[in-house]
């Protein structure tokens, strides 16, 4: 799925729509340059899950957990991490097994961290806003993408 999104509000709305249809065990990778809108998309996702309150950038704290929505959301950011042992401290594998929703910014820093069946959200700067590419890499997330289309 490939779309050009004109504004931050529209990007948040796309995240929101995903948050409304996402199911347990979803793994979402958010890839894109600084300022591409990764946190913005994650804010929409959180709101779509019914999570209230601010969803700040997790760059400093590395991972934030939100329990106030329909499903637990882990929002992680690998931007500042440099090696595998540092990553182990985030206990993201635990989060992936915990039946919530895991959204990871900068997953490309650690390929193989997210499961083979996941949703890749790629955000690119574009003259008219942001170009968003959603790719499901397995059957569970292909079904999720279908629900999002519906």
């Amino acid at each position, binding site marked *: 799925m490939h779309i050009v999104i004109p504004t*931050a509000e529209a990007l948040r709305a796309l995240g929101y729509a995903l948050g409304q249809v996402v199911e347990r065990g979803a793994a979402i990778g958010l890839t894109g*340059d*600084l*300022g591409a809108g990764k*946190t*913005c998309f994650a*804010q929409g996702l959180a709101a779509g899950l019914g999570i209230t309150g*601010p969803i*700040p*950038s997790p*760059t*400093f*704290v*590395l991972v*934030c957990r939100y329990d106030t929505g329909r499903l637990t959301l882990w929002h992680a950011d690998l*931007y*500042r*991490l*440099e*090696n595998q*042992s*540092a990553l*182990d*401290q985030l206990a993201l594998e635990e989060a992936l097994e915990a039946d919530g929703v895991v959204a990871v910014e900068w997953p490309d820093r650690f390929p193989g961290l997210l499961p083979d069946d996941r949703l890749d959200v790629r955000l690119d*700067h574009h003259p008219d806003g942001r170009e968003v590419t959603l790719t499901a890499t397995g059957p569970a997330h292909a079904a999720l993408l279908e629900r999002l289309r519906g």
Partner: protein
Amino acid sequence: MNVLGVETSCDETAAAVVGPDGVLSDLFYGQTVHERFGGVVPEYAARAHIEKVGATVVEALARAGIERPDAVAATAGPGLIGAVIVGLCVGKALALGWGVPFIGVNHLEGHLLSSLLEPRAPEFPFLALVVSGGHTTLYRCDGVGEYTVLGETLDDAAGEAFDKVARMLDLGYPGGPTVDRLAALGDPNSVKLPRPMPGELSFSFSGLKTAVRTHVLSSARRSNEDICASFQAAVVDCLVTRVRQAAHRERLERVVIGGGVAANRGLREGLLKSGLDVYLPTPSRCTDNAAMIAVAGRLRLLKGQRDPMSVVARPVWSVTQGVELA
């Protein structure tokens, strides 16, 4: 009452002693390991704290000229969990060994109260702006432990925006001090940047960061000095405007600041020109330090608070909540 403070929540291994007449000693051991990696490496941070915390505490006591403090205060969060645990465990162990009271301190409360260590200290109530790599929050402080959040960032923290802009310009880590230095040499009006101010007293720096990136990649790219000056002016405008609005709404003239970005010269000048009654901690007490932990712990101890040994380390912890017990 002499209180030993221990702080290991992020990059610095720090220990200090604060007594009735102020700071008796204030030490820290920086972790150069992060400069090499361009960011914080949690596991290395924790390991480096373990190696340095003992010597730092011994030296802080020696310089204060005491063998045993009357109480121990240690940061219990928020921060990198592995790093926080090191200082918290050392603090508890020392208190237990010496048989003196222990208190777990919220790192942000340390920043809120760091101005109280200055010769000219503010009286309650006051507004406090905590600006660092992980936080951008405006508080109303009515007394020790009586804090209300008036506004916070909806996305990036101010210090995070500084670090990310520094990375776009290849200025190294941490980026804040370098941006500040270059800003003094540039024209703050050269790059047109937004001043995002979302609803109420909230902050937002994500759009500003993106605007800087757009400019950096454009054909009209100015010098690093001009970009830093323009970016810093935009951040300072947002912060100072919010402080003035909060002062007006809360009918409070007194304002304190804390956190790493509080050392930024542009912000300090901007606040001093705001017409408010501003209290600035000395720059070395804006960044993480143990004297602020000792003073926050000391004030709580003087109010009669004592914490049990079951205080747990917390990666995320609002200063408006009390300590969590296991």
